[in-house]
């Protein structure tokens, strides 16, 4: 790809959601010149923009914080890190109020302002404003396609496509920060269409490894016609289309709730009945979540009185835990010059084997963004920047196929990869045979892509998204096969017990050949 636009910066942030924005803001406030390149538009990109994240919010009382960390460590099932938990609680408490100049904080009901929960569109608008005010150069609709490396293999920037002109852009920076979010495999989950794992693929092509990819899948309940927030459905009763009530364990049952719903949906339509909803909810849903209500009003449905069909939308690594492995306390990946933050990084440090739930996940996105942004700015300040850097592009699939280019049927591919990860028929009952079948299906698609896929312009952007979802599915399935036990979000029907000997993280990586290995804590060796 020959670039028509070349920019230089101290820090290149790839992505445009919550973690990317906090990273760019932190780096710029530390004095770095920052370019933020996003596939979508900063302010509307990513799952935060349509969401409403509550943040892990614990006041700086040492006893309260200790207690919060102990509770979270228990949920993490041996894979969390209490020091990381303490850091993200503290950073979130200190920095979420930074958005105040641009965010309409509401009342806390007792004379103060309510800070910990923020509505997505207003939050991302505020982060964009804060980034602009800090001097960040924002490139909307500029998806990155591949990372660039110098002769030593260190990352020195990225190349991508400007969606409007289809010209190639090229940003050179001594540090690059991957904050492209999680991968929802185009399940239709609200706000996730752009969350295709692009950053995981780019980083893996540079040699980065991943961790925690087995911790999933999970699903979000919504009306059958489109994904919404889930607030209205927590007290729902469920019926089949003959009007018989279904025996569904409550949402607090976690996997059992989703599994029962998924199995019922395999048998036929499932209808939700919201007549048991909290009495105060109908009166305030419009002012809390206008978008949720629009999904019903525009179809002429009174959601509180009429039953309506529901289905489950896969959440991929957005609710699941895995992502790029972080090798130190400043969010470096295993590739020199490359940092990771938010859902693109593994959240195991704070969530362990479970999903952090919204609050811990939002605190992670904010805090890992700030940590990575500051560290990248510091590293850029001390790195020598030659006037002209010769760099090679590391992208392979879609750019440099192994064999003769051929057209591929992408719609069928996306469908197959999505159902291998989220399909009700197998994903609710993970076992060795089913996982191996899914892995073989996805492997075959990967080979087709790696051998024959090639495109340019906007078609290349879509091709890379498909390849990234396929690669992410392969890592998820390989990790799920390798972890022969059940732990947290990873539930194996053929190994339902948690094995104390497996209380370690699991690394996964590779493109042509996918590998896994246990990430045992490094023991201090005695010099021989």
């Amino acid at each position, binding site marked *: 790809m020959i670039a028509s636009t070349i920019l230089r910066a101290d820090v290149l942030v790839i992505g445009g959601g919550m973690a990317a924005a906090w990273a760019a803001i932190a780096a710029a406030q530390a004095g770095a010149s920052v370019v933020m390149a996003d596939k979508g538009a900063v302010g*509307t990109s990513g799952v935060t923009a349509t969401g409403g994240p509550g943040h892990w919010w614990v006041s700086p009382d040492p006893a309260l914080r200790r207690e919060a960390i102990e509770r979270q460590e228990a949920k993490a099932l041996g894979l969390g890190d209490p020091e990381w938990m303490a850091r993200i609680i503290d950073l979130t408490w200190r920095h979420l109020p930074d958005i105040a100049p641009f965010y309409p904080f509401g009342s806390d009901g007792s004379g103060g302002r309510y800070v910990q929960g923020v509505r997505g569109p207003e939050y991302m608008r505020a982060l964009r404003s804060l980034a602009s005010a800090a001097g960040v150069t924002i490139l909307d609709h500029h998806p990155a396609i591949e990372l660039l490396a110098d002769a030593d293999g260190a990352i020195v920037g990225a190349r991508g496509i400007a969606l409007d002109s289809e010209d190639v852009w090229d940003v050179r920076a001594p540090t690059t920060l991957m904050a492209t979010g999680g991968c929802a495999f185009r399940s239709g989950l609200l706000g996730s269409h*752009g969350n295709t794992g692009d950053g995981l693929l780019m980083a893996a092509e540079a040699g980065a490894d991943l961790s925690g990819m087995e911790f999933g899948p999970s699903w979000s309940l919504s009306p059958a*016609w489109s994904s919404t927030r889930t607030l209205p459905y927590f007290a729902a009763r469920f019926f089949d289309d003959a009007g018989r009530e279904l025996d569904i364990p409550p949402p607090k049952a976690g996997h059992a709730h989703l599994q029962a719903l998924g199995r019922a949906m395999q048998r036929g339509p499932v209808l939700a009945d919201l007549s048991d909803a909290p009495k105060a909810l109908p009166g305030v849903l419009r002012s809390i979540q206008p978008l949720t209500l629009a999904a019903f009003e525009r179809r002429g449905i009174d959601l509180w009185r009429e039953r309506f069909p529901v289905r489950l939308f896969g959440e991929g690594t957005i609710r699941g835990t895995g992502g790029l492995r972080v090798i130190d306390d400043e969010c470096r990946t295993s590739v020199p010059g490359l940092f990771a933050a938010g859902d693109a990084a593994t959240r195991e440090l704070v969530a362990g084997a479970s999903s952090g739930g919204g609050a811990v996940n939002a605190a992670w996105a904010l805090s890992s963004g700030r940590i990575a942004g500051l560290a990248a700015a510091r590293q850029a300040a001390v790195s020598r920047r030659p006037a002209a850097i010769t760099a090679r592009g590391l992208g392979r699939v879609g750019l440099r196929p192994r064999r003769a280019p051929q057209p591929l049927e992408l719609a069928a591919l996306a469908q197959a990869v999505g159902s291998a990860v989220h399909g009700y028929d197998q994903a609710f009952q993970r076992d060795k045979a089913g996982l191996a079948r899914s892995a073989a299906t996805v492997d075959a698609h990967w080979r087709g892509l790696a051998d024959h896929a090639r495109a340019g312009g906007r078609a290349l952007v879509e091709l890379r998204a498909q390849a990234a979802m396929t690669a992410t599915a392969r890592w998820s399935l390989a990790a799920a096969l390798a972890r022969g036990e059940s732990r947290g979000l990873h539930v194996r029907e053929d190994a339902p017990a948690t094995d104390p000997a497996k209380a370690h993280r699991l690394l996964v990586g590779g493109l042509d050949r996918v590998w896994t290995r246990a990430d045992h804590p490094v023991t201090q060796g005695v010099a021989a």
Partner: protein
Amino acid sequence: MIAALVEDRCTNCNACVRACPGFVFDAGADRPVIARIEACQTCYLCELACEADALWVNPDEASASAPSPAELARSGQLGQIRRDHGWNLPLDAGQLDDYRLLGPLLNEGADIAARRYASRG
């Protein structure tokens, strides 16, 4: 998906072109063009960005059918999301004063379901 761009309301300001996370719109001579509808994720954020209240998203993620412009105008739905959000109000207008109720209402719903399940016959 995005289903209607009401021509006599559109001011051709291109806010939707800039805001759409899926790059669904192209700028046009007289008004934006819905050029890549397959990338629409039914997120309504273009409506929020449209100060002319000229856009309407069908809540069905697979349907781009829309009522006529006259029906849309009568429905009160044009601009409804922007008004519900208080999107263009001053930051101190109290548009998020109910937002703190989200968590408690969510927990209350989960408790209702848990109690009902525990007491089922």
